[in-house]
């Protein structure tokens, strides 16, 4: 399997060199219109409301957050499955959808694995047919496409002789997700978006699939955008983590730092809501009270202020910017921002 994919950093598809982020997302906005009652005023759900991040070449960026915080919407916007309202997305320095990088060409380099392993495979197609579909669309002759599908099946741990001609309902959830991964790899992408790709699997299968993903990343020189709500999984697989809350990134930085020493009170709450393996170390107080606010009508100022333990008056009027706390770690919290007016904020340093 090593022949078709050049896995050196000097791959011909690499335009900007290793220093250039593979994907840069700037100010991404998607509002879904909803109608409030009959003849009511038109409202919008601010599903994604100004998301910024970048993914470096060869890294795994985790995106975590509660249900409904816009993780999956962000993934769909990046892949162009949903049209974004505002914002820029650069893939290796080229704007997606521009003349230099049309959507179709971008999609040949970026693929996605969905959460629901059953719904993401056509029940009327054999699994080798599903995997070979993408290459066939891109003009690979049928026999070669089937051959590629079989070698990919072998690579993800499914013996082609036994599985290639089967139908999705004849496979287990873990096997189907392996097929989905093989399908995503069939077009030899550089970026793979994994949207809760292991969340529906049981723990032992999940671990196997995660190990497979890490091996494949090495072998095919991939970059992952790994969306999950499971912090343990994110800690295991990700190099950097972005924490989302109500359609915005509130903290982003190296996984070790963010998950060990979180700067945003929301990240802290998320981490303390994880059940501990130690029975003596019980969580006695609910770390996060209530549901996230309605994304149709988010609170003014910092969006986390109704649930935040550090809330002060300034949080209800000022929107915190995503500002660096150190060169690689950025956080959107007034309590961590010098000169914000929050009592816990560090003093303004003159040299900065």
């Amino acid at each position, binding site marked *: 399997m090593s022949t078709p994919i050049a896995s050196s950093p000097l791959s011909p598809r690499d335009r900007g060199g290793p220093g250039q982020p593979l994907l840069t997302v700037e100010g991404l906005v998607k509002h879904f219109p909803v109608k409030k009652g009959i003849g009511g005023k038109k409202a919008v759900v601010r599903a994604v409301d100004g998301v910024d991040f970048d993914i470096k070449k060869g890294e795994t960026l985790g995106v975590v957050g509660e249900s409904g915080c816009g993780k999956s919407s962000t993934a769909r916007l990046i*892949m162009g*499955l949903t049209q974004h309202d505002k914002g820029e997305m650069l893939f290796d320095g080229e704007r997606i959808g521009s003349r230099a990088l049309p959507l*179709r060409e971008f*999609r*040949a380099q970026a*693929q*996605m694995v*969905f959460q*629901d392993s*059953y*719904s*993401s*495979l*056509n*029940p*009327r*197609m*054999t699994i080798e047919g*599903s995997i070979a*579909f*993408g290459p066939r*669309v*891109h003009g690979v002759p049928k026999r070669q496409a089937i051959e590629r599908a079989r070698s990919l099946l072998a690579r993800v741990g499914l*013996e082609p*002789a*036994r599985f290639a*001609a*089967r*139908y999705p*309902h*004849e496979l287990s959830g873990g096997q189907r997700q392996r097929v*989905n991964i093989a*399908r995503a790899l069939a*077009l030899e992408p550089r970026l793979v978006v994994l949207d809760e790709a292991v969340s529906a699997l049981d723990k032992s299968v999940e671990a196997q699939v995660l190990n497979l993903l890490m091996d494949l990343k090495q072998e095919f020189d991939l970059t992952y955008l790994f969306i999950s709500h499971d912090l343990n999984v994110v800690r295991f697989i990700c190099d950097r983590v972005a924490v989302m809350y109500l359609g915005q990134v509130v903290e982003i930085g190296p996984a070790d730092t963010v998950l060990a020493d979180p700067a945003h009170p929301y990240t802290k709450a998320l981490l303390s809501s994880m059940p501990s393996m130690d029975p003596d170390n019980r969580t006695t107080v609910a770390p996060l009270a209530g549901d996230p606010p309605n994304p149709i009508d988010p609170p003014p100022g910092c969006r986390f202020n109704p649930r935040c333990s550090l809330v002060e008056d300034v949080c209800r009027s000022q929107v915190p910017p995503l500002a660096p706390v150190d060169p690689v770690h950025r956080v959107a919290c007034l309590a961590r921002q010098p000169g914000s007016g929050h009592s816990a904020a560090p003093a303004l340093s003159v040299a900065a």
Partner: protein
Amino acid sequence: MALGTSPASSAIDIAGGAPPLTSTPDAFVASRGFWGNVLAKLLRDPVAMTAACLILAIVAIALLSPWITPMDPYRGSMVRRLKPVGDATYILGSDELGRDMLSRLMLGGRLSLFIGVTPVILAFLLGSSIGILAGYVGGWLNTVLMRTVDVFFAFPSVLLAIALSGALGAGVFNSIVSLTCVFTPQIARVAESVTTQIRSRDYVDAARLSGASTLTILRAQVLGNVLGPIFVYSTSLISVSMILASGLSFLGLGVKPPEPEWGLMLNTLRTAIYVNPMVAALPGLAIFIVSISFNLFSDGLRSAMEVKS
């Protein structure tokens, strides 16, 4: 239980560690494909098979009727009118003009089946095109197409068929046209809802991500998954169509006498219902048998097409 054997054999495979032995039946099961499995399940469904055999037999008799009718279905006899069922010459009796009922029923099946089945086929083609287009494209096109379709739902189907046939004039062709107009909206509605459902599946998104054009996605990913349910629904409409077609003929809007057609025969024999009820009921019985056979067959087809998850 052909599908059930496949996971079972793979479990044995893992436990026993003997892939060469089990790989052959595995390959066999898989190679049969989806439609192969449907056929295999249908063949094991006694009700559906009985219904299918009945339909086939009736169609065969109707097609061959010009050569196999025991008597001339058009020649009447004033002295031998309304003979009862079981008569020595007329096995199923004779009608109000003394024509042989058996021969007329055999020949009448041709027209009845023709004007019953043809509108459904036409409506299947037309309705699924409209519905799949509306369902897949969505947006304003969906609104325009489906609201137009909804207009037809404002009328009860019998009324609509009668009104259209009345406006177009009597005749076989016009009754087929009007019945097609009755069934197209119903099939379009089903096609639209099935397609909308399938369109939101992740595999359609995955196909979009692979760079396939809309037409390719429709052909390769959508069509196979939506045509099944639409087809099943359409077969269940055949019985309704036959009854409506007979109704049109009964009202004098479809087939014209002396042409035998079950609905028309029912009409002309209704005056004889007090004289010879058995004979008068025969065309109705024929309609009943054919329509219930189509219904049972479509039921069997639906359960055979259910993919287990």
